[in-house]
């Protein structure tokens, strides 16, 4: 407990002051902890930790949610889950979101951040504008884009009309709906990632640029050998957020497609909601939740242990 001496413990006790002995302070520390911690611990245990444990427990049963789970099935729910095509589609869609975030959104965000990190006239307005979609609720972004994509009244309708093409309902097309959603995700989130990169760029020491220029490096070389390497940890952070965002993707999908057509735009969470909650299969749904939980934890641990460390 006392691995580092506090100024308090090394300052000599002065006579006449009500300096309490260390063990009284310790006792007071315990009292403070006993008073201050329970609200957070109780709330957290009740609504975060217990439910997650219960999901693992429920996943072993076939249960419609009424009464208590009794029909024990072992790992049956997991076997069923893994054999389902929708599960593979959902996993793949989550993977697609990550791929698009890393290979399309991240370069866009990084590029715009490099443009906007320099002081240029109007820069602040562009920053705000690009960040704006991030502020909108996902539900709203989904609704606005369902209108944009609407084959009768939206942007797409206008384009097909201009080029005399037949009406095209992209969100009703099994093969394209997911790509339409991916575009919305980039639209909504690149501004957030851009802000991360701007913060990362501002932390870079200006002298490095001057030194590079003095040494005769071209603008391209400065970007390639100074800026980008120094943004490595920001990139890792950006990818981290993209993966976490992908794993909980739900709100944008619901107003746009509800996971359809023919389950082609399900993600792990929409699958959990549509097939676990709506159909009252709590055991099966809990199995999805547990798998998702394991994916989240494994990712977070591996990423932080492995990737953040070598960023140092």
């Amino acid at each position, binding site marked *: 407990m006392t691995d580092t001496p506090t100024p308090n413990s090394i300052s000599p006790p002065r006579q006449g002051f009500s300096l309490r002995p260390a063990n009284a302070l310790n006792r007071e520390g315990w009292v*403070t902890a006993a008073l201050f911690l329970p609200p957070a611990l109780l709330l*957290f245990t009740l609504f975060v930790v217990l439910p997650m444990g219960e*999901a693992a427990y429920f996943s072993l049963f076939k249960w419609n949610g009424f009464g208590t789970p009794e029909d024990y099935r072992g790992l049956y729910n997991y076997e069923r889950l893994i054999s389902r095509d929708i599960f593979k589609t959902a996993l793949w869609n989550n993977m697609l979101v990550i791929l698009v975030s890393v290979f399309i959104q991240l370069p866009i965000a990084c590029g715009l951040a490099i443009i906007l990190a320099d002081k240029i006239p109007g820069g602040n307005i562009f920053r705000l504008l690009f960040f704006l979609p991030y502020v909108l609720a996902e539900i709203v972004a989904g609704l606005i884009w369902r209108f944009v994509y609407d084959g009768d009244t939206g942007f797409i309708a206008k384009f097909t009309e201009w080029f005399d093409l037949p009406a095209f309902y992209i969100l009703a097309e099994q093969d394209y709906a997911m790509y339409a959603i991916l575009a919305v995700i980039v639209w909504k989130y690149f501004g957030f990632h851009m802000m991360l990169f701007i913060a990362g760029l501002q932390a870079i020491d200006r002298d490095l640029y001057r030194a590079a220029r003095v040494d005769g490096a071209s603008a391209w070389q400065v970007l390639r050998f100074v800026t980008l390497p120094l943004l490595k940890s920001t990139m890792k952070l950006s990818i981290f957020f993209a993966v976490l965002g992908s794993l909980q993707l739900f709100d944008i999908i619901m107003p746009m497609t509800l996971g359809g057509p023919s389950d082609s735009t399900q993600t792990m969470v929409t699958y959990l909601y549509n097939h676990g909650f709506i159909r009252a299969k709590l055991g099966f749904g809990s199995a999805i939740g547990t798998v998702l939980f394991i994916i989240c*934890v494994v990712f977070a641990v591996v990423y932080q242990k492995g990737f953040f460390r070598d960023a140092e």
Partner: protein
Amino acid sequence: MQSEPLDPGLRKPWNFVLLYKYLVLGFVTLLIIAPLITTALGGFKSAADLRTNPFGLPTVWHWNQYTDILLGIDYWRYMGNSMLISAISVFVTLLCSTLAAFTFAHVKFFGKEFIVGYLMVGLLFPVATAILPLFVKVRDMGLLNTYWGVILPTSAFSLGMSILLMRNMFEKLPRELLSAALVDGCGYIRFFWHITLPLSRPILATVGIIAFVASWNQYVLPLILLNSEERYPWPLGIMEYQGEFTTDWHLILAFVTLTVIPAIVVFLATQKYIVAGLTAGAVKG
């Protein structure tokens, strides 16, 4: 904002580079605002006008589509529900997390790191993974379809990040302050109330605003925990509304616009805190 450009070498008298930058920025701006402006204008159009002329100004401005919503009861009830749920959630989050963060930052006691680690587990997974057991739990507690049924889980899931941010902030307060106070006979509790809290207003504002925005926009928890429209917060309300007017886009767009405007106004007023909070959380990573 820095005065020094990132790359001084890019400054040339004939600045094609700058021109190119503005072209890129202009193009991205167009992609961002075209859907938003079309939405806001669409709320003024008739259905036929929206169909033939989605991009231009309305041929006739139908103000009544907006005023009908503003004079009706649904919009205000949805907004009121959201306000109530978000405000109380933020209060509960701030209350629990300042107390916990203070204890972690200043009080030494056995098992502290273990408890901190325990609370950080919540950062590892999203609320959506636990919605089924949460539903069962809230139902068994008799809180289904009540405000508290949504408020408590919402607060619980925002605790991890709030405690993390606040603990980092509290630890930055000068150590001498605490030791001096303790020497003078001021206990932890009085120190917390009279010194830590007043000195931490910026971080409280940041954490509070982030928690508020998250709660204001949340969809999945109220979706599973509330079942009467009387208590719906606005994201559920707007889904209800669009279910009712499936293809009457002009009405839906008006409603969407009215829910977006307060968000944008609040964002512009508080952007300093929002951006600070996001990047602070990010840098700690």
